[in-house]
């Protein structure tokens, strides 16, 4: 009961803080709402110089709403003649955007991932933004380490990234490790020991929201980087096969870990909220997610939350600092058939930068595509885990790709499906390798 009241308290506090945060944003909503209504009611003649740009963007949680609202407020200051009309991105594997493109309904500005960039550029549905990137000064402010997410492989810019490189972090609960006297695993051997100890004490070793296939891809990738620092990125590029030693071993390792009881029963049907709650309530010792979880983990577990380097495989000690995740080109793109494409490109660059500012200020995220103006300070100091990550960035020897950063959609679907399959006990690594290799063979044809 105590736990529950405490939890409720935390949630009410959180709610208040959210309400508090959003109170300054509510103005934004009002202004955008007002803008839309004026656009509707006023005859066009008086608003002749106003330009309305349609924008297709994510707008569903704090991580997407806060930056968007912030960007809209800022835009009104610097581009008083531009109004944005928001079309909210659906969680539909890109069905909506694809249909828009196929029927000539693409909005002026839209958010894209790598595989869509590739499809769209073949059919002339995405504008090359090289010039706009220069003229707006976006490139001058871009961080050198972000060039992998700005430039496409062909050397052009198709989208302005609005975040930065992201990483898969292996979180753990220090208190649980101390309580059961478990060493934070640095090697595979130690990981197995930890799994056993936690299982004996009815603690789930690692909670994972494996209902989502991108995180199972990340889990496999984490293990793949233990054997080959390029992880799944190498397979995506068609430079390796699943039957190669490193990837076969990774599959076997994941299978072993599943059998050793590293994950909860029914993990492949666990969603984010369920998995996160297990970790934050002390029922699970470890948790896998992107670095964007740092803020939430700090809020819930305080000093007990930390992240570790992935455990090392015997004989592959060199890969200790290879991380999964990383970035891929993507962000705000522009429709080349837009009536105001030059302006849209300018605005796309502008809001991408404003997103970065908002993420820096309100979302505790310093790893961004562009350098934030020095006058801008984060609302609250960065969490310790973020400081640690920022300090350790230079140690990272390599990164790979998130599922959405994979360039070959065929491979993406295969690794998503197969990695989730591998998380169930009766799926064999041999099946995994066979299915994946069939797809890789097809890719290379």
């Amino acid at each position, binding site marked *: 009961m105590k736990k529950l009241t405490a939890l409720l308290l935390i949630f009410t506090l959180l709610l208040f803080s959210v309400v508090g945060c959003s109170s300054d944003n509510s103005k934004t909503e009002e202004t955008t709402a007002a803008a839309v209504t004026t656009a509707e009611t006023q005859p066009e003649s008086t608003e002749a110089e106003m330009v309305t740009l349609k924008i297709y963007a994510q707008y569903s949680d704090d991580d997407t709403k806060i930056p968007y609202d912030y960007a809209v407020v800022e835009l009104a200051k610097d581009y008083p003649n531009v109004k944005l009309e928001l079309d909210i991105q659906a969680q*539909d*594997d*890109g*069905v909506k955007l*694809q249909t828009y*493109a*196929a029927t000539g309904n693409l909005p002026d500005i839209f958010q894209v991932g790598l*595989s869509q960039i590739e*499809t*769209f550029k*073949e*059919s002339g*549905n995405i504008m090359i933004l090289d010039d706009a990137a220069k003229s707006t000064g976006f490139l001058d402010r871009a961080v050198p380490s972000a060039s992998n997410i700005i430039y496409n492989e062909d050397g052009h810019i198709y989208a302005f990234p609005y975040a930065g490189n992201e990483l898969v972090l292996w979180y753990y609960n220090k208190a649980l490790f101390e309580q059961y006297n478990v060493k934070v695993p640095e090697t595979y051997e130690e990981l197995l020991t930890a799994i056993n100890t936690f299982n004996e004490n009815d603690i789930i070793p690692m909670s994972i929201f494996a*209902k*989502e*296939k991108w995180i199972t891809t990340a889990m496999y990738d984490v293990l793949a980087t233990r054997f080959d620092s390029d992880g799944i990125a190498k397979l995506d590029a068609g430079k390796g096969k699943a039957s190669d030693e490193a990837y076969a071993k990774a599959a076997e390792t994941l299978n072993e870990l599943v059998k050793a009881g590293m994950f*909860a*029963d*029914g*993990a*492949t*049907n666990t969603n984010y909220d369920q998995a996160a709650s297990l970790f934050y309530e002390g029922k699970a010792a470890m948790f896998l997610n992107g670095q964007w979880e740092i803020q939430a983990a700090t809020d819930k577990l305080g000093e007990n939350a930390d992240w570790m380097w992935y455990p090392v495989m015997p004989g592959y000690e060199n890969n200790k600092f290879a991380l999964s995740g990383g970035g891929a080109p993507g962000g705000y793109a522009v429709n080349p058939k837009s009536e105001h494409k030059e302006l849209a490109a300018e605005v796309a660059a502008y809001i991408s930068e404003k997103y970065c500012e908002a993420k820096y200020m309100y979302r505790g995220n310093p790893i961004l595509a562009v350098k934030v103006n020095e006058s801008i300070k984060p609302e609250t100091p960065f969490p310790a885990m973020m400081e640690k990550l920022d300090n350790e960035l230079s140690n990272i020897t390599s990164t790979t790709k998130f599922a959405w950063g994979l360039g070959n*959609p*065929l491979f*993406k*679907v295969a690794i*998503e*499906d*197969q990695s*989730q*399959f*591998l*998380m*169930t006990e*009766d*799926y064999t690594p041999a099946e995994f390798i066979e*299915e994946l290799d069939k797809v890789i063979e097809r890719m290379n044809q």
Partner: protein
Amino acid sequence: MKKFFGNKLAILVFTLPTLIIFSLMVFYPITQVFYKSLFKWNGLGSGSFIAFDNFLRLFDDKLFFLSNKNGFIFAAIITVFQLLMATVLAIAVSTLKMKGRNFFRIAYFIPVVLSVTVVCQLWLSIYNSDYGLLNRFFETIGLDYRQNWLADRKHAIYAIAIVNAWQWMGYQFALILAGIKSIPTSFYEAAQIDGATPVQAHMKITMPLLKETYKFCLLISVTGGIKAFTEMFIMTSGGPGTSSYTLTYMMYSSAFRSNEFGYGLAAAAILVLECLMAILVINFVFKSEPTVGGE
């Protein structure tokens, strides 16, 4: 009478609007499905013509057979469950002299009114391995039958089919009920005078008279099963892995996740053909006798 039923103008007025709307909005798109299934096409641009390569590839794809198998399992479960339950409940509601008949009639239809999203969320919760009602139920009655209902490659499809069967039973229930209501009461009275028990009366009167009703109930279940999608999309995303893929999900996954539109449409084309086969078979089975009400 012949002139009356052969009124050309009336036929035109009656059928043309439907035919126009249907041809433009449904039939033309279907032809596009078949046409584009012959292309290597990413959904944009014009693609390249590869004749039947997509189909040949389908027949070499394990996933295609798995999707088909799942579709048939799905169709079988929902057909049996829905027809059986709908018949029993519709007869009960229309004949039983009990208080609150209206209440039952409305209650049985409620799941249909709710959105699929809500229903799937509810069942996700019921099926949850950890705290789900189902596992708790087995625990309470002392059976060691805990399962990872949706996380098991062999059982997931059954678990999902139950959800669909349960939610849309109300559809068939309402149809059969409407059918029973349009049967004149005198038919039953005659049967009663002949000394038939209620069950016999229904077997002899309701069933044969509702032949057409049953025909399309069967049709909805079978085709609905073969083209199932939404439940797996929400509940498992075709998973774990690929174990709850259906043809529609495969089509969706190929077209929108892997950008292989042509391949996806080939799967959709097969799906349409399978449904067409189903309708032909069902029509054939039901054709054996002329309809009773006709004369």
